[in-house]
C-alpha cells in the first residue's frame, strides 16, 4: 500500500517568506508527527497529532511554526517569516493510534527546505 508522502520534496525560499509543507499519512493512521532534521544531526520533534486530541505542540521552536491536520488525514506545517536557521529536512511520520505502547512510526521521504 501507499506509504507516507510529503510535498514538495525540495523547497528553496528567501528569508522572510512563508512556506507550507504538506504530509499525507498512511490511510487509517490516526497519529501524525512532524520532525526537523538539520544536516548531520538527529531528529528534532516538532508536533504530534493523535486522533481528536489536542496536538502536542511542545516541540515547536517558535511561534513562527504552526501545523494543522484535517481530521485524520492531511497535515500542513507552516513556517512564517523563514530564517536561514530553518533550513533543514522536515520529516513527517504516521502510526496507528497508540495502544499504550510505542507504535511503529512510518516516515515519509521528507521535504528539504533551504532558506537563502
Amino acid at each position: 500500500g501507499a506509504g507516507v508522502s510529503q510535498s514538495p520534496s525540495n523547497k528553496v525560499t528567501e528569508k522572510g517568506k512563508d512556506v507550507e509543507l504538506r504530509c499525507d499519512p498512511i490511510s487509517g493512521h490516526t497519529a501524525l508527527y512532524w520532525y526537523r532534521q538539520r544536516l548531520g544531526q538527529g531528529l528534532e520533534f516538532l508536533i504530534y497529532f493523535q486522533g481528536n486530541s489536542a496536538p502536542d505542540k511542545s516541540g515547536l521552536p517558535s511561534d513562527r511554526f504552526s501545523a494543522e491536520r484535517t481530521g485524520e488525514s492531511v497535515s500542513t506545517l507552516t513556517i512564517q517569516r523563514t530564517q536561514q536557521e530553518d533550513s533543514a529536512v522536515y520529516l513527517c511520520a504516521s502510526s496507528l493510534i497508540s495502544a499504550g505502547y510505542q507504535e511503529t512510526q512510518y516516515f515519509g521521504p521528507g521535504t528539504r527546505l533551504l532558506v537563502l
Partner: protein
Amino acid sequence: LAKTTQPISMDSYEGQEVNITCSHNNIATNDYITWYQQFPSQGPRFIIQGYKTKVTNEVASLFIPADRKSSTLSLPRVSLSDTAVYYCLPGGANNLFFGTGTRLTVIP
C-alpha cells in the same frame, strides 16, 4: 528528564557482528524500546522493538537486561548496505525524542 545515550559513531568490517548499546537509565515501567535505521536522504525506518530479554527478527536482535536500563542492538554479519544511522527510542506512546543516533560505517 529522561536521557538516552548511545555512541556517536562506530566502524565495522564487512561480515562482522555489530553491537550498539543504548543507555536509558530513567526508562518507565510501561516503556518499550524501539530501534530505527536511517539511510542518507531517507526517513528513519523501524528495525526492532522489545520490552525485556531478547527479541529477534530477520534483520536484527535486541537484548534487554533485567533492569532495562540499557539495550543492545545486534546486527549479524554486517554488509556495506548496513551503513546508516541507528536510533534508540525508549518510551511509551509519547516518547518522540530520537536523539542523535549512532552512525555505523561498514568498511569493505
